[in-house]
């Protein structure tokens, strides 16, 4: 039975029906050769819906399930999208990563739902971050973020995101112990958090992966604001001016000393360089316009021929085939997932900070991808959570979704320390 006693038949039916309608749209509008092309996709997507619902119904007890159904809906839609690019087929690799993401969601939930426990294990988080940093420094190729093992490529910097968000959230513990350094009241935890961010930023700079830098910066800023608003913080004008000034100096210096290719992207005129730096964005914008409101039809697009059509410019590929409205609603589903904590508010500072960090990471990542492919900001090449293809990204996003869920179904249980029995108590017990 569900622990909260609510019935979820309506949610299950709605998720199933949405996926069935999308599969029917492929049948009626899609680009396929025989009906057999659609069968594996349909069986797997609907099968996963049913299996996951049964697992939730009978084997898993928690307080809130809406996040799970949002995730199930989104992952099913994502598999359908990815299977349609360049003709109807079945994106097996993407399906496997989606299942791993669902598992990681439960792992993230179980690890972070008890804030007292996770805060007591924060040293392990620093060790994991250290291992990830060292693996990037020594195991990846020269100035690259990827570790290649056979046919599998792993991006350790993706795994740094949940670890960094957790480090930011656990830094709440020693907030009362603040010392005045120069002009600011800071705690040791805040300094460690800042140090971790500086190291990560330096590493991103060294690896030429500046697209992810705003994501970490967003998580850090959210945590910093939470820290400053915490009890006993001096959230004064002096602090605001000081931090703003430091931020402005850092941004100006970063833009001035940015690598050549970044400065090229900042000033590129895509329509004049259609065959050069602006190739992907031009194609993405043309595809977006060609798709219109209702799209060309699943598998009927042409953007799949462009490099990174299923990752970096996936929003345009979806809009071309399914239409702008469906693309927009997919983003709304993701936004809905992120907005759930506003309905059911977290009840601890730890979970508040953690959820803010997760939301910041996902929204910035989504914004960089969508606005980048629409030429509103420089093209960065980051993925849309759960929609773009990519194992490392999918695992990370699954874990982050689990963290969001933990804020919805937290555990407020503190294990009391076992007291040693005195001799007299032992004697009394023996007599009884």
């Amino acid at each position, binding site marked *: 039975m569900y622990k909260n006693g609510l019935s979820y038949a*309506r949610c299950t039916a709605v998720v199933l029906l949405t996926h069935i*309608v*999308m599969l029917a749209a492929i*049948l009626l509008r899609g680009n396929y050769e025989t009906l057999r092309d659609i069968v594996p996709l349909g069986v797997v997507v609907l099968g996963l819906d049913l299996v996951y619902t049964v697992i939730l119904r009978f084997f898993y007890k928690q*307080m809130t399930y809406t996040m799970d159904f949002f995730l199930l809906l989104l992952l099913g839609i994502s598999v359908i999208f990815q299977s349609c690019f360049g003709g109807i087929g079945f994106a097996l690799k993407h399906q496997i990563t989606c299942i791993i993401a669902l598992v990681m969601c439960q792992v993230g939930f179980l690890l972070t739902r008890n804030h*007292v426990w996770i805060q007591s294990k924060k040293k392990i988080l620093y060790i994991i971050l250290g291992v990830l940093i060292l693996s990037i420094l020594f195991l990846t190729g020269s100035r690259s973020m990827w570790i290649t093992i056979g046919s599998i490529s792993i991006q350790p910097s993706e795994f740094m995101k949940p670890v960094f968000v957790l480090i930011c959230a656990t830094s709440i513990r020693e907030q009362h112990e603040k010392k005045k350094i120069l002009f600011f009241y800071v705690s040791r935890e805040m300094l460690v958090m800042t140090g971790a961010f500086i190291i990560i930023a330096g590493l991103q700079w060294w690896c030429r992966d500046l697209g992810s830098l705003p994501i970490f910066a967003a998580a850090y800023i959210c945590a910093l604001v939470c820290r400053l608003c915490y009890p006993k913080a001096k959230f004064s004008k002096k602090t605001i001016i000081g931090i703003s000034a430091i931020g402005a100096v850092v941004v100006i210096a970063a833009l001035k000393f940015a690598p050549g290719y970044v400065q090229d992207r900042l000033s590129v005129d895509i329509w004049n360089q259609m065959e050069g730096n602006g190739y992907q964005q031009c194609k993405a914008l043309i595809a977006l316009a060609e798709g219109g409101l*209702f799209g060309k039809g699943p598998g009927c697009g042409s953007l799949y021929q462009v490099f990174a059509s299923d990752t970096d410019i996936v929003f345009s590929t979806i809009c071309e085939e399914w239409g702008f409205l469906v693309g927009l*609603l997919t983003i709304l589903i993701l936004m809905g997932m992120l907005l759930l904590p506003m309905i059911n508010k977290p009840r601890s500072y730890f979970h508040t900070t953690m959820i803010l960090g997760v939301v910041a990471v996902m929204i910035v990542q989504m914004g960089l991808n969508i606005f980048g492919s629409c030429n509103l900001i420089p093209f960065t090449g980051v993925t849309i959570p759960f929609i773009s293809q990519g194992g490392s990204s999918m695992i990370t996003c699954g874990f982050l979704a689990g963290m969001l869920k933990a804020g919805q179904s937290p555990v407020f249980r503190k294990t009391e320390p076992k007291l040693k029995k005195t001799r007299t108590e032992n004697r009394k017990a023996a007599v009884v």
Partner: protein
Amino acid sequence: MLENILEFLQGNAIFSICISAVVVIFITASIFTMFNHAQEEKRVEQLRWNKVSAHMALYDLSRRLVIPLEADEILVGRHGAADIRFPDMSVSRYHAVLYVSNGIWSVMDLDSKSGTFVNGRKIRSQVKLKDSDEIRFGDKAVVIRERRRRKHV
């Protein structure tokens, strides 16, 4: 036969638009359904929180106010960012924090100017609270008390 029908339908632009519109309607409906369920979950979560917090609330007797305790760490102070705000000059901006663990509430003073008192005694460390204890933040006195539970018929 079926393939011929499908081919005919695929060539019809209005039919394609209708199919897309149906997809849009279903996705929108699923988003609304989920949010509706989230509202119901909020109600259930509130009942669960009442259990976690042992149905306790603060009673401001001077203003005849019941202040619900809605989180496991609650900041009391005069500052706008405080969870429970007392606009009284005797209360510091960040005065004290209330904690709950295993259904037991406790209070800790944050080095406030006028101090925090439990049943008239000034507290120096984190102190556990019992039903009907009087807590005084500066000149502002409140009582922590179990809320009246609704009788289920």
